[in-house]
């Protein structure tokens, strides 16, 4: 298939792959350990040949922490969003397809999730489960599905009167089978776009929760807790905040651009019917 | 006036292609329209009818581009005209109605205003001066209660009424040429008949020429004096309408006519298989002899 050159798609892909490659090949890219190589004697050193991004207040290599932090932050971003998308799609599909009271319930729930600041939920879940990657995944994965749900639901409502859905029913397909085999494949486009955007949001949300001390367990690195730890030192030790900040920025930007690109890319194909 | 109103010469429309020669959607289309004439353009779906009509208005969307050719209107080439002068012609001297009356009107503006816009644009009237003229225009297309209807929104009208509004709009400035791109395809048979009658009456009254595009041979037969048959981007046959229907020359045209189930034919001929035209023409053939028919249906 001929993919026309698109700035956002290319740039988005480039940034995202940069971050993912960094995370995957972290051990090859740096010889420093992000946790164990802490040496207070060596703290707050500016960027140098040995420490490309300098060292933080605990004397750890910021470059190594940014790379290894990418593992945590990306995992959280991607898995949490996967959970969100799954919930959103499941609820949106069933509500849009079945309608009736179930639709009302899901709709109410969606509104609720949109209206209550998601931080409150996340806070509650984190406080109950305690800090850590798993709790973060649960906290961020259960609280941000309302958008996917809305989009899925409205897509399903317009799709369900399509001939092929009707045909599937007359062929004896069960409801669940129709949702999974007929509807789901046709809404992946917008849902995928939503998901790429959501990944960026989850990365930012992890940072926000770390701010409140509810991120992952230190001293394990995540961009969120790196930013939190170093925020007071933004003047005197700028490298300790700028680099993780840049990493968050690049990741969110990358996924946003990717999402945009995917949408632009899916658009024309939807218009031109062979 | 003796010469043609619009003279189209070798119109070629294509999609530019960085790597190679452009993909030509319409190739070397030439025909002319006389003042006051109803000229029909028929052809199967995708044969390039709309693309040609839109090219005349300069309205083709990217990536479609007019590659070659001329469309002479009063000595000027529409295809090479600056945008500004083209805008003055559009709606004013040449106007157009589209296939889908449901979406062709702005859903958020009142009917009256959308018609009045024509007078504001081309007659320099103020909105308040234009409003009564819009009501008149509605009355002219036999819309009942034109005063009330002018205040209605498109969704409050039926498809037939909407198409009348489109016609009222197109005829508002008494254009020389009306391009009607499948004006009735979306309509019901009974409504279709009314709309077609209306177009014909109006044009006869105002002396407006019509370029009527359709793939419905019945519609064309009922309306047109001359007909061009298009297939796969090429013009195959250009004939007087009666002659075309009684004595089609091109095998493709013959096939088309044979494929038509004719009302009343069962009584005389019994229940028979319709002639099956599973062919199209080779776009790149130098001329359109029967030998250049190729099997269709394998999309690129």
């Amino acid at each position, binding site marked *: 298939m001929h993919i026309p050159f698109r700035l956002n798609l290319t740039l988005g892909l480039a940034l995202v792959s940069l971050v993912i490659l960094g995370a995957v090949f972290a051990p090859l890219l740096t010889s420093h350990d992000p946790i164990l190589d802490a040496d207070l004697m060596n703290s707050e050193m500016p960027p140098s040949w040995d420490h490309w991004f300098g060292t933080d207040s605990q004397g750890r290599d910021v470059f190594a922490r940014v790379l290894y932090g990418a593992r945590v932050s990306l995992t959280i971003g991607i898995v949490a969003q996967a959970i969100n998308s799954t919930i959103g799609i499941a609820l949106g599909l069933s509500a849009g397809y079945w309608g009736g009271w179930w639709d009302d319930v899901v709709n109410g729930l969606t509104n609720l999730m949109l209206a209550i600041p998601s931080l409150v939920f996340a806070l509650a879940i984190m406080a109950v489960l305690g800090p850590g990657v798993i709790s973060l995944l649960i906290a961020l994965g259960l609280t941000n599905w309302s958008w996917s749900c809305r989009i899925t639901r409205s897509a399903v409502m317009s799709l369900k009167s399509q001939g092929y859905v009707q045909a599937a029913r*007359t062929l004896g397909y069960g409801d669940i089978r129709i949702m999974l085999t007929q509807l789901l494949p046709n809404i992946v486009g917008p849902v995928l776009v939503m998901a790429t955007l959501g990944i960026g949001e989850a990365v930012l949300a992890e940072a926000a929760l770390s701010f409140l001390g509810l991120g992952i367990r230190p001293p394990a690195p995540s961009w969120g807790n790196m930013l939190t730890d170093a925020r007071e030192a933004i003047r005197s030790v700028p490298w300790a905040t700028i680099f993780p900040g840049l990493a968050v920025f690049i990741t969110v930007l990358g996924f946003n651009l990717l999402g945009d690109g995917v949408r632009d890319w899916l658009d024309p194909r939807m218009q031109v019917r062979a | 006036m003796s010469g043609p109103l619009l003279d189209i010469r070798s119109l070629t429309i294509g999609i530019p292609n960085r790597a190679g020669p452009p993909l030509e959607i319409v190739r070397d289309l030439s025909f002319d329209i006389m003042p006051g004439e109803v000229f029909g353009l028929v052809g199967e779906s995708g044969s390039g009818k709309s693309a040609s009509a839109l090219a005349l208005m300069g309205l083709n969307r990217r990536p479609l581009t007019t590659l070659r050719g001329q469309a002479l209107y009063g000595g000027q080439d529409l295809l090479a005209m600056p945008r500004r002068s083209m805008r003055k012609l559009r709606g004013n001297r040449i106007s157009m109605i589209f296939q889908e009356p449901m979406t062709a009107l702005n859903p958020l503006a009142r009917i009256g205003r959308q018609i009045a816009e024509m007078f504001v644009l081309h007659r320099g009237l103020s909105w308040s001066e234009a409003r009564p003229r819009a009501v008149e225009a509605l009355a002219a297309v036999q819309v009942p209660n034109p005063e009330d209807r002018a205040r209605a929104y498109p969704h409050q009208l039926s498809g037939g009424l909407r198409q009348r509004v489109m016609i009222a709009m197109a005829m508002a400035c008494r254009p020389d040429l009306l391009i009607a791109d499948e004006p009735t395809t979306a309509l019901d048979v*009974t409504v279709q008949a009314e709309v077609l009658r209306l177009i014909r009456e109006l044009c006869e009254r105002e002396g407006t020429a019509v370029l009527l595009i359709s793939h419905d*041979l019945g519609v064309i037969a009922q309306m047109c004096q001359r007909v061009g048959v298009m297939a796969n981007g090429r013009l195959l046959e250009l004939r007087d309408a009666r002659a075309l229907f009684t004595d089609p020359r091109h095998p493709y045209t013959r096939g088309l006519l044979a494929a038509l189930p004719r009302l009343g034919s069962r009584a005389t001929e019994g229940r028979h298989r319709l002639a099956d*035209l599973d062919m199209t023409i080779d776009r790149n053939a130098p001329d359109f002899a029967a030998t250049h028919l190729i099997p269709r249906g394998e999309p690129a």
Partner: protein
Amino acid sequence: MSAAPDPAGAPILKVEDLHVRFPVSGGLLGRKRILHAVSGVDLSVQPGQCLSLVGESGCGKSTTALAIMGLQPPSSGAITVEGRPVYGPGAPDRRARARLAQIVFQDPFSTLNPRETVGRALSQPLMLHGVRSRAERAERVATALRQVGLLPEHAARYPHEFSGGQRQRIGIARALILGPRLIVLDEPVSALDVSIRAQIINLLMDLQQNLGLSYLMISHDLGVVEHVSDRVAVMFAGQIVEEGGWREVFTAPAHPYTRRLIETIPNPARLTGGASEILPPAPEPPSGSVFWPPVDRRPDISQPPEPSVLMSIGEDHRVRVRKI
């Protein structure tokens, strides 16, 4: 209901006094209205025959079709396919119904799932209906494709790789795959252009002959209808206004609405002096009655229809009239 002649035994489809009403809300004030989309329709299709339902847009044809397919629960009335009710306590479930009747939709573009290969679209239902063997499924898919004039290789393709006519063929193949005896065709050709239309019509006629299918065909294209049907029912504003054998209806149309439909069909034959250029004069309604409803005053379907009856005016020809 009036007894129709019954030459071939039990009808395969029987619709009795079907009513479908939609609640719609209108206007700023949100007052609820009832739309009487279908008001008392009776139909029956004999095995191996084709009944056509014609009428203008919005008169309730599709609603009737959906009701027959079990997709639109009727407000009242009974529908039986091969003697088994479609709704109600004794109704077979969705899967069993699928083997009784199938439907082909109007729009060839939206009837196929763009993300599913044709082969999958055809073999999934088989699997669902208990055909476990992969080879057997492939065999039946190939047969169905061949029946509609496509090649077995086409099974691997996606819908967007087919032209409109080909897609409509696939739609028909899908309707055939479970071997139903009744197929409902909801405007199967109106979205196609002339040449392709002919192919599909030919195909439908061939299939009927070869497989002994029964059709309920919905259309507003009288040219097509005349060509293929055995019987014709003309629908107007939710009611049947004229019904009979194709010959009766087309050669002696009685109801003003039917006449108007035939009149307004643009027909090249007119230009070339074809047969039906001049309609025969309209028969008079039986004395003491008028044809109902009047065409110049379209009935408001948000009101229940005024009482009227279908009256026999010929051997196999009935028209809706109202006593005066």
